[in-house]
């Protein structure tokens, strides 16, 4: 039993934290997050040069990490810095390429790792409400290739992505697990329309529409109709990344709130001397430690062979993070009082990110139900 990170991971976290402190202070982040592009390609490439993306992948894939705790260490640091650059897309699309890609397709992994290629995960649809098997987008064979009709909802940084991983149904009913196929789609493919807008927690998102979009045979990733297993792996990595990001953001929100309780005076005394606030702060600390434990459990389980144990740990973590993230966000704003409502303060931006993480890859309710359903598989 050992809860220390390896020397390599600690060094990576240190250099990433230092880079963020120097290059990504709140003003810079705010400027980037509301910019026309929604992130900085330059910063993204600097992350790649630091080895941040390489750490998310195994040596076999051209990286130098790829374990659950590599993802956890990187994304916790990104969460502390409220980073909007598209690293989530990199880890998710990269995982799918690694799991199911042909040799030719895997060539793209190198460009993801060196930051040349921005990848985006395009799976959610308007009516799915996080249900993974809900795929209405259809792909039909046409000659050697495919024709895609349908739409994808709220793709992170979709306007600037070079490569999309798109799920589409090639057979089966709307909610079937079988019959989902995955496609690699490059930006500017004819028949693809991208409509973007800002996200409330910074950065930009986009809706994708496919109107008879034609793809070559080489666009299919993995076996036709059997994309679900690959999706699950990619989403698993994404869930872990988001959970770790959340813990980083929680720590930042906690530090800011504690600092405020120690400096703000009312009624002639520090508000941190009031027991009503002390107990709420103690609750937050306790909950954040539980969230951290949830991330540790998920990171330890993600590379395990037992599918149900792995997926349960991931859903348990995302449920915990969803619940605790919203609590930390709401309580931090409340304890800050009026100033916590202002754009100028970093804290509310952390609060927004903490809450919006619950709107990505399944919310608290979704993952609680998934955890219960997976438990029945154990019992059966």
């Amino acid at each position, binding site marked *: *039993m*050992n*809860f*220390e*990170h*390896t020397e390599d991971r600690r060094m990576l976290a240190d250099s990433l934290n230092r880079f963020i402190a120097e290059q990504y202070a709140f003003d810079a982040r705010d400027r980037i997050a509301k910019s026309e592009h929604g992130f900085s390609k330059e910063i993204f490439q600097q992350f790649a040069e630091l080895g941040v993306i390489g750490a998310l992948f195994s040596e076999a894939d051209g990286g130098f990490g790829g374990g659950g*705790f590599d993802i956890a260490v990187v994304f916790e640091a990104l969460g502390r810095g409220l980073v909007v650059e598209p690293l989530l897309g990199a880890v998710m699309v990269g995982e799918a390429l690694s799991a199911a890609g042909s040799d030719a397709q895997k060539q793209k992994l190198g460009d993801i790792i060196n930051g040349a290629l921005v990848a985006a995960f395009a799976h959610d649809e308007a009516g799915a409400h996080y249900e993974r098997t809900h795929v209405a987008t259809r792909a039909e064979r046409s000659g050697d290739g495919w024709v895609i009709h349908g739409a994808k909802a709220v793709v992170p940084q979709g306007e600037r992505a070079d490569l999309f991983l798109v799920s589409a149904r090639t057979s089966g009913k709307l909610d079937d697990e079988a019959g989902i196929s995955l496609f690699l789609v490059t930006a500017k493919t004819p028949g693809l329309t991208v409509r973007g807008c800002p996200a409330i927690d910074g950065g930009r998102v986009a809706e994708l529409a496919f109107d008879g979009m034609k793809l070559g045979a080489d666009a299919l990733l993995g076996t036709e109709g059997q994309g679900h297993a690959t999706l699950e792996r990619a989403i698993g990595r994404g869930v872990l990344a988001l959970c770790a990001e959340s813990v980083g953001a929680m720590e930042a929100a906690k530090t800011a709130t*504690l600092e405020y*309780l*120690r400096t703000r005076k009312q009624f002639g005394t520090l508000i*941190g*001397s009031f*027991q009503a*606030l*002390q*107990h709420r*702060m*103690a*609750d937050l*600390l*306790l909950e954040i*430690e*539980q*969230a*951290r*434990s*949830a991330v*540790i*459990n998920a*990171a*330890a389980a993600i590379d395990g062979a037992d599918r149900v144990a792995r997926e349960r*740990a991931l859903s*348990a973590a995302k*449920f*915990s993070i969803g619940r605790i993230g919203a609590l930390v966000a709401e309580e931090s704003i409340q304890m800050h009082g009026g100033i916590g409502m202002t754009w100028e303060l970093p804290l509310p931006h952390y609060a927004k990110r903490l809450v919006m993480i619950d709107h990505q890859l399944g919310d608290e309710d979704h993952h*609680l*139900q998934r*955890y*219960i359903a997976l*438990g029945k598989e154990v019992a059966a």
Partner: protein
Amino acid sequence: MDLNFTPEEEAFRAEVRAFLADKLPARLSAKVSSGKILAKADMEEWHAILNERGWLANHWPEQYGGPGWTAVEKFIFEHECALAFAPRIVPFGVNMLGPVLIKYGNEAQKRHWLPRILNGDDWWCQGYSEPGAGSDLAAVKTSAVRGIDAQGDHYIVNGQKTWTTLGQHANMIFCLVRTNREAKKQEGISFLLIDMTSPGVEVRPIITLDGEHEVNEVFFSDVRVPAENLVGEENKGWTCAKYLLTYERTNIAGVGFSVAALEQLKRIAAAQTKNGKPLADDPAFAARLARVEIDLENMKTTNLRVIAAVAGGGVPGAESSMLKIRGTEIRQEISSLARRAMGVYGRPFIEEALHDGFDGETFGPAYASAAAARYFNNRKLSIFGGSNEIQKNIISKMILGL
């Protein structure tokens, strides 16, 4: 980062499991798992079995008869005992007084009292709380006045202790007494060992809301206590008290109890039906069950993180306050769900069914009779050992620096 136990620790776990399979009497584990009340003889029997193996005083150093376990080994032992539904070790002598005597007692006291704790010659109880000193423990008023007469150096003790758990079985009590009224609150307190068979000691039962006689009031009227029964220095008893409380909190999360209780709850939820379907499939019940299970999974890891942090041999600090709060909340929630799972059969209460010798008919399933009683009894968890609100004060001061 590695959540696995070492091969040596796994071997130790196997050793503990084999011991429990071999030595834990089925009669005792059946009583514990069904929520029955243990008799004094039951607890003494289990203590003797553990003592024979050298595992009773697992917090003591080897030179005093402890097994010399690491923090991880202690955790594994306590966890496995809970999973096997072993009786709890009665903590007052073994886990509370023992470490205090080892740290603050003189040689004569250690030589005399420690072996008697191990052998079960004395049954100790704890004389801390008073009617006016609960969470505010330093407000104790029970007085001890020093005097010398023909029979020797002694104290005369007057006052009242309360919430004295299992005091009805005890022949000895360790007390916080006030030896200096002039000094500041914490500075006039002494730590005194009192023979409960002395003239002037009276024990009166307090019946708790579940109908149980678990706690007592203890009254002292001009009780003569030999001065040699003072532990540590006079007026420095608060130091002993604080030290003891850290030991009281070492297994405070009670993860093993929760794991065992949750497994039991799942079996009950599968057996109880609602409209012909298992209660476990009811979405509202299933959601509550899953929530507490996830919280417990997180808690297990939090507990191991704290243990790993103190594995160097230290005593857990304010982090144990977090374990206490969440650990007791989880235990309370599980017993709350067990009560709910009984439906209408939560209400019938045949007190005798919780004791030995009952052969009458129960109402509803056999496990129903203890569920509500256990739920009500478990309200104590967030009150004793420093209430959960006191724990938040400790976190606020020691960790958050507020």
